[in-house]
C-alpha cells in the first residue's frame, strides 16, 4: 500500500530536472584543479551552511536515525546533541579547523606531510579513503530500499533505480566538481528541508505528541528518554558517540571540505557554528518518524527489521502530493550526500594517495582528467559494493565502526599536528596502525570466533578503547623516537 501518484512523480521529475540542469551548467567555471576540488575557496557562510547540512543528511542518515528512534526512543537522538555540542565548540574556538584552513592545504593528509613527512601523508590518505568508502558503500542500497518501500515500487527495479540515481549524481559531479556540488546542495537543502519539516508536522498532527511519548514509555520505560539508564546504551554509548562525533567534526573529509572551501578560516568557523544545531534536527526529526512507526505499525508489519519500519509507516500515512515532496526531499538528501562524498574521497585519492606519482607538476588539464576519472571509478565501486554487501545488526554501529577506522587515528594526528610540538612520524605511524587494526579486528570478531556475542554487545566499549589505544600509540610512539631523529632534524 502506498500513496505515490502521478502528481508525486511529476514533483520528483521536476526536482531532478532542475538539479541536473543547475549542476551541469556551472561546469564552465571549472578551469583548475582547485576550482574542481574547492570551488577556488570562494564559498561564503550561507551557501556553506546549506551545503554542509545537505551533505550530512542522506537517506542513510534518515534510516539509521529513524532506526535509533524505533529501537531506543528519544534517547536515540543523543548522538545528534553530542555532534551539535562538538561542532558548536569547534566553530566557536576554531579548534584545529583554524590552523587547518589557515595552512592553505586541500586535504588533511597534506597538512600531515608538513609535520610527519610524506609517508604519513600517503598512509593517512589510504586510511581516510578506505574508511570513507567502506562507510559510503552501504549508502546506495539503503537509499534504494527506502525509495522502493515508500513509493511502493517493485523491488526488482531497485538496482536500476540505484544505478540511475548514481549515474545522474556522478554526471554533474564529474563535470562541475565542488561548484556543482555547492549549487546542487543549495537546491537540495531547500527541497530536503521542506520535505522533512512538512512530514514531521504531519506526523505530529496525525499521531500526536502524547502518543509518541506514551509509546516510548511503554516500550522502553525511562531508558527511552535517558540514555544513561537505557540497557542498550549507557555511559559507554554516550562516551563513544562523543568521541566519534567530535572526531568526525574535526576530520570527516566531507565536513572539513566545507572549511577548506571557505573564503577564510573565519567563514569556515561561522559555517560550523551556523550548521551545528542542524545536527540535533538530523537525529531528532527522523527519530520522531521512527517512534511514530513504533506507535503505528504492528510487529508483523515491521517483520523484525527495524531499519525498514519508518519507510513502511511513511508509505501508509503520507498523502499524495506530500508524498512527492517527501520522495523529492529524500532524493535531494541522497544526491547531495553522494556527490559530496564522491568528490571528497576522490580529492584525497588524487591529492594524497597519488602524490608520489606527481613529483613533476601536472598540468591543470591532466589534473582535472584524473580527478574526474577517480570520481567515475568511485561510482563504479559504489555500485558493486552497494549491491552485494549485507549489513548485519545496527546500521549506526556499522557506520560508527567503519568510520572509526580512520576517525580515531586522523583526529589524534590532527590534534597532535596542531597543538603538540613533540608529535612526530613514529607516533603518527603507531596511531594509524592501531586506528586501522583495532576497528577492523572488532568488525571481524563480531562475525567470527568464539566471542562474537561479547563483541557485538560491547561494541561501543570497544570503540572507546580504540580511541584510547590510538592516543596512547601517538604519545608513546612519539616519545620513543630517539632525540637525534627529532622533528627539527627531519621526520623521515
Amino acid at each position, binding site marked *: 500500500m502506498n500513496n505515490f501518484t502521478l502528481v508525486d512523480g511529476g514533483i520528483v521529475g521536476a526536482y531532478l530536472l532542475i538539479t541536473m540542469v543547475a549542476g551541469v551548467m556551472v561546469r564552465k567555471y571549472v578551469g583548475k584543479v582547485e576550482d574542481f576540488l574547492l570551488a577556488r575557496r*570562494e564559498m561564503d557562510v550561507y551557501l556553506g551552511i546549506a551545503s554542509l547540512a545537505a551533505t550530512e543528511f542522506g537517506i542513510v542518515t534518515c534510516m539509521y536515525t529513524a532506526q535509533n528512534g524505533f529501537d531506543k526512543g528519544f534517547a536515540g537522538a543523543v548522538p545528534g546533541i553530542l555532534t551539535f555540542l562538538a561542532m558548536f565548540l569547534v566553530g566557536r574556538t576554531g579548534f584545529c579547523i583554524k590552523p587547518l584552513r589557515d595552512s592553505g592545504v586541500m586535504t588533511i593528509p597534506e597538512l600531515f606531510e608538513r609535520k610527519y613527512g610524506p609517508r604519513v601523508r600517503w598512509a593517512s590518505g589510504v586510511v581516510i579513503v578506505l574508511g570513507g568508502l567502506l562507510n559510503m558503500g552501504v549508502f546506495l542500497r539503503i537509499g534504494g530500499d527506502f525509495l522502493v518501500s515508500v513509493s511502493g515500487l517493485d523491488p526488482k527495479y531497485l538496482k536500476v533505480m540505484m544505478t540511475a540515481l548514481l549515474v545522474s549524481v556522478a554526471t554533474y559531479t564529474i563535470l562541475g566538481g565542488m561548484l556543482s556540488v555547492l*549549487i546542487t546542495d543549495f537546491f537540495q537543502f531547500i527541497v530536503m528541508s521542506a520535505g522533512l*519539516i512538512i512530514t514531521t508536522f504531519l506526523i505530529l498532527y496525525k499521531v500526536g505528541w502524547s502518543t509518541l*511519548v506514551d509509546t516510548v514509555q511503554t516500550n522502553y520505560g525511562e531508558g527511552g528518554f535517558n540514555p544513561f539508564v537505557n540497557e542498550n546504551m549507557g555511559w559507554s554509548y554516550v562516551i563513544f558517540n562523543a568521541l566519534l562525533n567530535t572526531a568526525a567534526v574535526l576530520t570527516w573529509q566531507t565536513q572539513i571540505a566545507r572549511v577548506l572551501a571557505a573564503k577564510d578560516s573565519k567563514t569556515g568557523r561561522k559555517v560550523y557554528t*551556523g550548521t551545528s544545531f542542524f545536527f540535533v534536527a538530523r537525529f531528532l*526529526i527522523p527519530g520522531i518518524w521512527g517512534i511514530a512507526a513504533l506507535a503505528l505499525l504492528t510487529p508483523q508489519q515491521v517483520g523484525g527489521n527495524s531499519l525498514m519500519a519508518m519507510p513502511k509507516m511513511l508509505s501508509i500515512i503520507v498523502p499524495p502530493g506530500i508524498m512527492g515532496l517527501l520522495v523529492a526531499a529524500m532524493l535531494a538528501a541522497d544526491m547531495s550526500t553522494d556527490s559530496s562524498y564522491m568528490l571528497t574521497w576522490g580529492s584525497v585519492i588524487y591529492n594524497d594517495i597519488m602524490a608520489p606519482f606527481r613529483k613533476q607538476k601536472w598540468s591543470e588539464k591532466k589534473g582535472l582528467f584524473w580527478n574526474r576519472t577517480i570520481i567515475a571509478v568511485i561510482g563504479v565501486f559504489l555500485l558493486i559494493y552497494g549491491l552485494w554487501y549485507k549489513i548485519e545488526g545496527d546500521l549506526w554501529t556499522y557506520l560508527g565502526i567503519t568510520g572509526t577506522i580512520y576517525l580515531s587515528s586522523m583526529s589524534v594526528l590532527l590534534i597532535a599536528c596542531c597543538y603538540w610540538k613533540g608529535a612526530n612520524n613514529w607516533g603518527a605511524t603507531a596511531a594509524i596502525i592501531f586506528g586501522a587494526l583495532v576497528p577492523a579486528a572488532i568488525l571481524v570478531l563480531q562475525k567470527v570466533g568464539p566471542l562474537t556475542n561479547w563483541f557485538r554487545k560491547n561494541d561501543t566499549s570497544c570503540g572507546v578503547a580504540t580511541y584510547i589505544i590510538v592516543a596512547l600509540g601517538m604519545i608513546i610512539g612519539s616519545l620513543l623516537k630517539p632525540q637525534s631523529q627529532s622533528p627539527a632534524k627531519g621526520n623521515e
Partner: protein
Amino acid sequence: MMTAIINTVATMLKHHWFWGAMTLACLVWYSTITIYIAIKGIGDIRNMLRKLSGSKNQ
C-alpha cells in the same frame, strides 16, 4: 487553530519537557533557517560565480 497549536505546545512541554522543548526548538529553528538560507544563499551563489567568472576572464 491557534488554540490547538498552543495546546500541542503545552502538551509537548508537559510530557517529558526536555524532548518536547528540543523538538519544538528543532522545528522552529529549522523552519526559520531554511527560509533565511534560501534568501541569503542566492546572494552567496551570485557572488561566487561573479568572482569565478571575473578571475577566469582575467
